[in-house]
């Protein structure tokens, strides 16, 4: 009655090495790829100067001069200071003269990039702190979480007015 199909058992595929193979793939990808994300300060350069263009007439009283000399010394309108102080001073200047202020950066050809970077960082910090304060007051959340329109408004309220001189 019992029909017994006596079958030859199919030998199982030996998969114990699949783990090793995928490990090798994993290590290959770990070695050849990189995870570093590019971070930095995003800035916009002015278009190249036009020959016919008249230099803009800016009243001297609006201009704040940040100067870096060849010994990497930082001066703001002639007084020596640190990057921390620079941020605070610039925030005051921007607040006083929101739409007219101009930050002029003067460097020497020998100034190191690192010092310049710290100054750029301080300027970005001054603007972003002010914009953040404004965003919290207006929309009740930090600037980074505001909508595009709100951001445009705030950017219009605190425009970035930076001028960079070609180093001599």
């Amino acid at each position, binding site marked *: 009655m019992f029909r017994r199909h006596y079958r030859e058992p199919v030998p199982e595929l030996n998969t114990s090495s699949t783990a090793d193979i995928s490990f090798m793939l994993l290590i290959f990808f770990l070695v050849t790829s990189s995870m570093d994300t590019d971070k*930095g300060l995003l800035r*916009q350069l002015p278009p*190249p100067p036009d020959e016919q263009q008249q230099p803009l007439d800016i009243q001297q009283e609006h201009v704040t001069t940040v100067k870096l000399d060849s010994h990497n010394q930082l001066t703001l309108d002639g007084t020596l200071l640190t990057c921390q102080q620079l941020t605070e001073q610039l925030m005051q200047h921007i607040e006083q003269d929101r739409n007219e202020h101009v930050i002029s950066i003067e460097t020497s*050809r020998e100034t190191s*990039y690192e010092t310049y970077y710290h100054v750029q960082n301080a300027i970005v910090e001054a603007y972003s702190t002010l914009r953040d304060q404004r965003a919290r007051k207006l929309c009740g959340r930090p600037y980074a979480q505001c909508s595009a329109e709100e951001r445009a408004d705030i950017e219009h309220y605190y425009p970035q007015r930076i001028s960079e001189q070609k180093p001599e």
Partner: protein
Amino acid sequence: MNKIRPRFRSSDSQRGVPGLNLASMPDLIFTVLFFFMIVTHMRDDNLKVRYQVPAGTEVRKMEQKSDVINLYIGDDGRIQIDNQLVTLDGIIPYINKVRQTLSPEQAERLTVSLKADRKTPMGTIADVRQELQKAYSLKINYSGSEAARQ
């Protein structure tokens, strides 16, 4: 004396420790592999210069990777753009060449990520910046590492 034996020490079945089932191991490793394939990207530039970027507290992440030209300035002042060493005069032709391969929208977003060594004199940076201005590549990212805020 008839001691009560613990149950698990039944003398009649002396079985060994069952072997660990490794059948799911490849799947696990494949999962890790796919994770890495997604979060990382291939290293596309062969660095020919050595550089160490400065650190700042306000650095932001770059959004797209595709419309970015990497410009490296090494500690010896040599300039590498994407994958080749160039002189100052080679920057404009290279950017124009890249721009031709991009769509107009991408060309508008084109950003140059400036990865310069922290000891580079500003003279070099200013020269490079002037070339970028002439090439009308005005979006620039001063690449830096993130420093902790005091």
